[in-house]
């Protein structure tokens, strides 16, 4: 009896520590997201009140008011991030396959070049390239913004996909061909499903990196291409907590949708998160 108690005591202790860590995770994750919910419907909330003294829908009226173009900025952000993602997939799948499945000369150099933008901040390159963008008319255009957003997104897309392709057995494709599937069928029925989790994870990275981009958008879009981060920035600077909060809630919505959709792909082995180990 006493021995059993002796043995259980440390286990309980471990559980307590674990529970503290778990509580830390829950609170740590949730707390920085809660104030926005309250602030977005606040009219007056002065220090040191714990709850607002007056509530109002002002911020949400601002959001839906077509004059303020929040909705348009939202759509702009959506178009840009989606385009970046699609182009990222189109460019990333072949590159990921090449890097994941084949050995070739100077592969290390190719890997280095492709990874470079994930490590070296894109701000440096974008500041350098802006003057050329102005000259060739890409500045202040959607296309220009999409192009610079590709810089920081491509490495993540390709690394994720190459991780998936590295675990992919090309003999499945051969088997399918020998069973009578043509190239297209093989691609859609065999290759695509096999690398799909990687595409989902890579797309998620690409979309979110583009979605959260401020400095590259302002540099190349020059303010003319108004995205949500640009609106958000002008309000975080103005001290209007209510509108900044409402905007940040709008800003976070797609992220939450994406998370719900991709959650199961994130933790699995097939996600290609392991690709980051190859750097």
């Amino acid at each position: 009896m006493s021995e059993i108690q002796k043995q259980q005591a440390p286990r309980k202790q471990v559980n307590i520590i674990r529970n503290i860590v778990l509580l830390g995770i829950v609170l740590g994750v949730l707390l920085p997201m809660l104030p926005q919910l309250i602030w977005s419907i606040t009219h007056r909330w002065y220090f040191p009140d714990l709850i607002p003294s007056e509530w109002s829908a002002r911020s949400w009226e601002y959001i839906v008011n077509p004059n303020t173009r929040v909705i348009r900025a939202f759509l702009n952000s959506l178009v840009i991030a989606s385009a970046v993602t699609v182009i990222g997939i189109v460019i990333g799948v072949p590159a990921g396959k090449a890097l994941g499945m084949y050995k070739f000369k100077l592969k290390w150099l190719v890997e280095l070049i492709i990874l470079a933008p994930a490590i070296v901040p894109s701000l440096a390159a974008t500041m350098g390239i802006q003057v050329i963008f102005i000259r060739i008319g890409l500045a202040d255009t959607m296309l220009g913004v999409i192009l610079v957003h590709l810089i920081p997104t491509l490495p993540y897309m390709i690394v994720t996909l190459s991780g998936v392709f590295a675990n992919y057995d090309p003999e499945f494709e051969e088997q399918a061909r020998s069973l009578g599937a043509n190239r297209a069928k093989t691609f859609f029925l065999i290759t695509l499903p096999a690398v799909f989790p990687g595409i989902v994870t890579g797309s998620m990275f690409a979309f979110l990196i583009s979605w959260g981009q401020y400095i590259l958008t302002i540099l190349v879009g020059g303010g003319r291409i108004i995205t949500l981060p640009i609106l958000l920035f002008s309000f975080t600077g103005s001290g209007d907590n209510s509108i900044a909060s409402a905007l940040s809630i709008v800003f976070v919505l797609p992220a939450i949708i994406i998370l719900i959709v991709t959650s199961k792909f994130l933790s699995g082995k097939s996600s290609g998160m392991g690709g980051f180990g190859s750097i």
Partner: protein
Amino acid sequence: MNMKKVLIVMLLLVVTMGGTLWAAAQQEAQAPFEARYKTMTWDQIVAEASGQKVYHYMWGGSDTINNWVSGFYANRLKTKYNITLEMVPVTGPQVYINKTLGEKQAGKDTGGAVDLVWINGENFKTMRQGDLLFGPYADKLPNTKYVNMDAKAIAYDFGYPVDGYESPYGAAQMVMIYDSAKTANPPKTVAALLAWIKANPGKFTYPALPDFSGSAFIRHLFYYANGGTDGLMGAFDEKKYQEVAAKFFPMLQELEPYLWREGKTYPESLPKLNDLFANGEVYFNFNYGPGDAAAKIKSGQFPATVRTFVFDEGTIANSNYLAIPYNSSSKAAAMVAANEMLDPEVQYSMAVERNSWPLIVNVGKLPAEWQTKINSINMGPAVLSGAELSNHTLPEMMADWLVRIEKDWTKLVLQQ
């Protein structure tokens, strides 16, 4: 992997890019507007403006102003002149100055991104000296007849001659802001304020320069150190500057320990100060817009007990302007937009809808109907009357002084 498809998509991408470049390279065949506008009638300009799109770059941190510009003002331009006005919210004037400057450097002399800017002071001077502005155009605007264009505070922007390269838009005057619930009797002179700061440590600060408002506040202390505006109104004078600076900077350094966070840091912008003030962390605030405090009461940012005052010796007044970059592709529409800003109805709306006060137009010059309407505006207890404001104005120094003060402030105060 389906290589052909990938290639096709890539090809499409290249073609799209190329197409955009080609389109951008296609310049308008017609003679440029800047070569013709001087001989055009206003009606011709209005006609040419129809269908044009104006990118209006301005500070975008106020929901009321954003709403008004993108709503009332943009709608009016659309219905009245078929001009599309796109407000581009930015964090500060350096965004569009740098942008235009960059375009000039890159040789993009037409089809620039910026068509109309909200500007004044040293920023105007920078753009003017960099040959970044279109003009002179202000004299072509019919509605300037409502404005005392010859008044020194309008014809000179921070002592720098406007020369028609920008058109007035709103009047500004520094007002001090306090919460009557916390400070019943605010110190109404600079000397009294300095004494108050020392008696109430940690309850006062100002935004770090080169913040627009922080810089304006500091200039009041500069005048105070000089004992008035004498000798400061002309071009920059190194000897005079050194003389005043010898008193001014020690005064600021002496003040630092009594400031919020003992002057170790400063809020980096006016909005940060607004936040500190709204939450009672500091007891004073100030703003270049005498009506701004009332707007913030309305939006809930400030308590209803907030009031404003001006120093007995006066506060600095100046004007806000609109200007058109040299490489704008919609100069006609930008001119129409700038003119419309001085329309009596628009000015009235500015006062009522966005607490813009006082108005730049001379109310006496307006049609009688608008005179009565404007005179009957009740801005509420947090806004001083036009007379109270106009009886306590101080002139601006020329921008060179400002630049020097800001530079030395960073060195001698912030970085100490």
